[in-house]
């Protein structure tokens, strides 16, 4: 099993909290941070102070893009809780409902999260077995934040817990392990009874004298030791050889073919038929495994995960999967250990005494240092150097373009690490709720945004993806049309990737969970209540508010004609686009969210008179047929397979969306609406399916909404009856059109004067064979049902057919009259219609007549 760590970087989250030993700012800022999306986002990264100093020092002056977002859009801090390495690699992603914690060996670098041989454990808050580990990580982080004592970090940690409040929970034994109060090895070996059967090891070591392995071997007393020794292990080979030799165990040494650097760290034991694995950040070194950070200043800060597994799983965990293809274990001789050498990590080029620097409002800079600084030390940003008065620069910086600051001595020589200067206002902005997007939907003019209509459209556009062709993804794809492509599918793939990055896409992912989310996120209930002060909730009984509330006092704002046109066009485009299958690239519930949002908008347009009623009604029709289905064309719902359809309907079932839909449809087809026949038949496929699947509902919320729309109360039962009637109503003209289309005969219901028992009279095309064409049977059968009569006359040119249930069938064909041998019953007629039989079956002489 493998884990795509980068896949966790997406727009679901409002908190990203990381600890790492090394950090690549360009990789994070160019690739990972954009995947985390727009504000609100609390992205905070704690890095080993020395390694961060190296990373920032390496950012050359001619590459200003590197590190440009540090301490502006996210906070990065070099930390040193002990004199050892700050070495934990943990990545927490959270939002108000859920979260994921990754604990492993990979640093926040491209190698650590993408290309290296790293091992990670994933804890998912939705899994009760994992939640305890996230709580344990939270407790560990609480301790760390307390020791780090950095105001910005503390504030953001508090903010993170507000954004993901579930993270605070009861601490209980969990797979997550750290060395804050107890050495990791102690925790790992708890309950393990020596001698163990097997001990498995792999890590880059970083142990000068192999002391950690020595201690491990002494305490576990293994009968067999298996070591995976990959390229560039850093350990004193003879010392390791000595430890393994003295253990008395059967030692097996493996390498990899091809030989690769493996950064993953694993320790496994098998004893008494049980297995246990330790993974995480801890190398096979004393500072990592044998010391507790809160008590021992030489300890590293480490953490990891312990899993109790089947014995067979222990050994299997040590083989990294490809790439490269064909990667395999090879056996090595113990002699190969003797050539290994310990390579000490470089110290930072400059001591990381400068913990942070932050702009003050008066453009001076406040610094935080970990040591007492000498008099004469000044602060520089590369272009300006200023003296310090305590922790604050004496003078404001005239040039605030420098992104980094560091301490210099009298001679201007750099004497501290560099830090990215905090921009508190911008950092705060990153935590804030999203501002309204400045980009406006296509078809809306800038001045429109000053109007209520424009604001409504901008609000919708900033939160929903209505028209795929309007998304940056599609636009970028279109722009890219001007370049050559040898891969025709590339643009679609690119568009999907871009769509995934659209900041609005994440909102849709909140649908479909156990908690009903459609209302409140897409159907803005709060706004609906605000619009209608008398409406206290979606289940208010109809007729319970004062009619006068709706009109209010003063002059109601109404858009001018041209704005109405633009509003109508934009909404029409969005409603039509609901059936665009590409929207479903973002998940099958995306059109559902749009349906809810657009219903809310149409309701608002109706109530606030943004559009004339017929225009709103037209849009209701467009929306409904795009969502359900139209005459002869599929809608979003009709395209779904059973599983997706069930998912969609389950989401709608917990929402008032169907009630709003039912209300708008009712208002459109209400008895007082004289023009409804102009659109009713086009709506009917959607009405029929919509009622059947509960996309349209008639309940108290429907009734409340209807009252707001038309200004008079109607009971839910009356609404339901009207909707049912509207879904099946037909008239002669429509009946004729429908039957003509379906049978491909020209069928017209006429009002020819025949005996009263013939309640239906029809004319079909002049060439139709009344006795030989089976379609005539079906037409008659349907005409009798439609007219609720027993008798029917069908004329075709000079020929005529008379059908009366319970009587014989008579026909005058080419001047000759024939009569059936037996009376025709309703049952026989239905059977013939179903079987596709012609009326000729009733006549012995049919062939002669037909000829």
């Amino acid at each position, binding site marked *: 099993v493998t884990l795509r760590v980068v896949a966790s970087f997406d727009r679901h989250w409002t908190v990203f909290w990381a600890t790492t030993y090394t950090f690549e700012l360009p990789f994070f800022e160019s690739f990972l941070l954009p995947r985390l999306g727009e504000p609100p986002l609390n992205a905070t990264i704690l890095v080993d102070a020395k390694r961060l100093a190296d990373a920032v020092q390496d950012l050359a002056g*001619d590459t200003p893009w590197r590190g440009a977002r540090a301490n502006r859009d996210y906070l990065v801090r070099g930390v040193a809780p002990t004199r050892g390495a700050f070495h934990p690699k943990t990545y927490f992603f959270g939002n108000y409902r859920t979260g994921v914690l990754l604990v492993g060996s990979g640093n926040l670098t491209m190698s650590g999260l993408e290309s290296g041989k790293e091992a990670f454990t994933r804890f998912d808050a939705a899994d009760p077995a994992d939640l*305890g*580990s996230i709580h344990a990580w939270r407790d560990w982080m609480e301790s760390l934040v307390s020791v780090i004592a950095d105001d910005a970090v503390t504030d953001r940690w508090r903010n993170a817990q507000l954004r993901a409040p579930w993270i605070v929970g009861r601490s209980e034994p969990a797979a997550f392990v750290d060395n804050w109060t107890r050495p990791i090895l102690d925790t790992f070996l708890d309950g393990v009874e020596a001698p163990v059967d097997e001990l498995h090891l792999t890590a880059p070591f970083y142990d000068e004298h192999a002391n950690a392995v020595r201690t491990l071997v002494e305490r576990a007393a293994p009968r067999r030791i298996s070591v995976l020794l990959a390229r560039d292990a850093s350990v004193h080979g003879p010392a390791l050889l000595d430890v393994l030799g003295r253990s008395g165990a059967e030692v097996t040494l493996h390498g990899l073919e091809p030989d690769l650097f493996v950064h993953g760290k694993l320790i496994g034991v098998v004893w008494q038929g049980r297995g246990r694995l330790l993974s995480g950040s801890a190398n096979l070194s004393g500072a990592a495994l044998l010391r507790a950070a809160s008590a021992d200043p030489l300890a590293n800060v480490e953490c990891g995960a312990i899993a109790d597994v089947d014995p067979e799983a222990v050994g299997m965990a040590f083989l990294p999967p490809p790439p490269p293809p064909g990667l395999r274990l090879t056996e090595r001789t113990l002699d190969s250990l003797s050539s290994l050498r310990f390579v000490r990590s470089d110290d930072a080029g400059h001591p990381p005494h400068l913990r942070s620097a932050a702009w003050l409002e008066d453009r001076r800079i406040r610094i935080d240092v970990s040591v007492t600084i000498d008099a004469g030390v000044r602060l520089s940003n590369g272009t300006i150097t200023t003296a310090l008065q305590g922790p604050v620069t004496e003078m404001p910086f005239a040039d605030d373009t420098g992104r980094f600051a560091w301490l210099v001595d009298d001679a201007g020589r750099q004497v501290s690490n560099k830090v990215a200067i905090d921009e508190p206002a911008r950092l705060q902005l990153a935590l804030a709720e999203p501002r309204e997007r400045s980009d406006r939907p296509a078809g809306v003019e800038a001045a429109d945004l000053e109007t209520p209509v424009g604001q409504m459209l901008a609000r919708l556009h900033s939160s929903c993806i209505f028209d795929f062709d309007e998304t940056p993804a599609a636009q970028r794809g279109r722009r890219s049309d001007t370049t050559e492509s040898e891969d025709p599918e590339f643009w679609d793939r690119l568009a999907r990737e871009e769509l995934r990055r659209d900041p609005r896409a994440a909102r849709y992912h909140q649908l479909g969970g156990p908690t009903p989310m459609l209302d409140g996120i897409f159907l803005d209930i709060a706004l609906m209540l605000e619009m209608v002060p008398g409406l206290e909730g979606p289940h208010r009984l109809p007729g319970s508010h004062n009619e006068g509330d709706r009109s209010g006092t003063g002059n109601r704002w109404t858009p001018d004609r041209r704005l109405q046109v633009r509003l109508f066009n934009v909404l029409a485009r969005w409603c039509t686009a609901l059936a665009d299958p590409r929207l479903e690239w973002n998940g099958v519930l995306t059109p559902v969210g749009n349906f809810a949002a657009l219903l809310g908008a149409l309701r608002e347009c109706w109530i606030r008179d943004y559009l004339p009623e017929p225009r709103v009604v037209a849009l209701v029709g467009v929306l409904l047929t795009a969502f359900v289905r139209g005459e002869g064309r599929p809608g979003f719902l009709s395209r779904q397979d059973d599983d997706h359809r069930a998912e969609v309907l389950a989401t709608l079932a917990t929402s008032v969306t169907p009630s709003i839909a039912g209300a708008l449809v009712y208002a459109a087809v209400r008895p007082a609406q004289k023009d409804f026949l102009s659109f009713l038949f086009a709506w009917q496929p959607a009405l029929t399916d919509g009622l059947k699947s509960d996309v349209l509902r008639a309940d108290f919320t429907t009734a409340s909404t209807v009252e707001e729309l038309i200004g008079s109360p109607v009971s839910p039962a009356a609404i339901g009856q009207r909707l049912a009637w509207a879904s099946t109503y037909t008239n002669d003209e429509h009946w004729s059109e429908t039957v003509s289309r379906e049978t491909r005969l020209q069928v017209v219901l006429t009002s020819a004067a025949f005996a009263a028992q013939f309640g239906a009279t029809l004319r079909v095309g002049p060439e139709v064979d009344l006795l030989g064409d089976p379609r005539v049977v079906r037409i008659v059968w349907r005409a009798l049902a439609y007219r609720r009569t027993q008798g029917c006359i069908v004329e075709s040119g000079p020929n005529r057919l008379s059908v009366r249930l319970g009587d014989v069938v008579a026909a005058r064909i080419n001047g000759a009259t024939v009569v059936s041998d037996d009376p025709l019953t309703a049952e026989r007629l239905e059977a013939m219609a179903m079987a596709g039989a012609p009326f000729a079956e009733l006549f012995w002489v049919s062939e002669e007549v037909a000829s």
Partner: protein
Amino acid sequence: VTNESPAGIGPASLTAAVSGMPDWLESTLNVTPGRDPLGFQTITTDRIIPRLVPGVLALSRRARYFSFYAFLIDDYRRRELGASNNSLSTFIKRHEYELALAVELCPVGHRNEAVASNGRERAAPAVSRGDALFARNESVDSYLGGYGLYYRSPMVDLGLVAPRGTQIGESEDVSPIDVLWPDDQRAATLAAAFRSAINETEYFRHYFASDRDIPRDVLRDYARVACLCRLEDFPHERQALREALLVASATQPEEDVVRRREAFAFLTWLAAQDERVVRVDQAFRDRIWDVHEAGLTNTSDTLRRTGARWAALIAKEDAQEGISSIWARVCATGLAANGSNGISAADLDAALIEPLVAPAFLEPFGVPIPIEPTLESGKLRASILAAAAGHALEDLREWAVRDGSALAGLALLLAVDGRVEALGDPAAGWAEIAAQDGEWQPGLTHLRLLLAEHLRTGPDVRTTMRWLVRSRIVWPHELIAYSKLPQSTFRFRWESGRLRFYDLRPERFGLTDNRRDALGRLGADIGLLEWTPTGAIPTTEGRALVTEVFG
């Protein structure tokens, strides 16, 4: 024996379900050489070409597709099929596939030609299998098929198609689907012309609107009139295509039409002097530069201006070729110098720059130029200009590419700068193209200004090479490659203070498509050019266009 571990997690029978079980990391990166590693080619593709040849993409190169798609869009509307581009997409892709089958079956025989039919990848194997009946299929998976990929944008630019979402006429409604502009007779004429061509075929009468498998003979008969090569049999359609590409209309910017006419006329004018320009890129570039440098375009203002624009493109591309040579050597040298483990910033000059400027002889056109790292760059410039005097710039470019060294690349860059300087004051039209900058790289004018500023201090070759590598290669590439993730196109990257190199080929990036091929094929399709074994020559209509445009 207790079943409880100290961590409180009991042994599990299914390892996958154990909390705390580690997994090995899986990469999401797609390692690929990618395109345009330094961001120079995009200047040509996205900034320059749309000014030189608006409405013509590299792969929109068969004129008959313009009438074919006009016909499909028109026919779709006539049949009143679903008013959405999704349905239109399916409709187009099916008929694209059928046309691709027909092209493969064309009696003229195109199997060994680059006929550029949309859907050929699927159609060709079906035809090769020798099937007697062809099941229905779609040309490609992509939305709107080859129309969407290569022809929709040009047809919109040409004012033939009103894309979905366009407000048409006085109506308040926007079109939910691509339609032909109702007010533009050119689009209707194109559609009618193609319809007329295929109207009597068995394919159109009995198979076009059905789902039945199509017999081979029916498609072969369809190819007889519908193949991309058959335009000469339909002069009215050809005339309609010429008008669509070259005649102004209310539905497209007038300036676009002017530029397009100039582009076709310029190619035709060049072809009259050297028929190879239509088929051979080197000849095309050579003639463009040569006629401009020699002042052969001075016969009219329009020709002079047009020639200057195209010459500026050639100069930009040649300068880019010099940088491409340096880039290729940087990649190779970095890799060779322990690049996979990285080169520290302190070692960068020694490990990367010094090998690029190691003492060497360049021999352009047989003239030896000895180069030491300490040679003043200005002297190298003078030497290369002297050696190349009287030689075509295209020949110099070919020499530098063939030599392949970073020094030859630097020499080419300096020579291009010198040859442009020798032109004197820029002709009208030149500045518009030369001033086009990219997102990450300067255009020709800006690059020359930077170079002049650098040379003003009298640097030596080592200093100039270091300046170029740092400013135009190392940091732009890293920035561009980061912007392309998760496509991993890094040839090198700073990691923990070391510049680490990746072995991705090809190292060199080439010249950018200059639309010669598209212009040539379209020009021949619409009767401006006539193919010859070695190129193409102007037809009577082609010569008439040249006269109309350039006088």
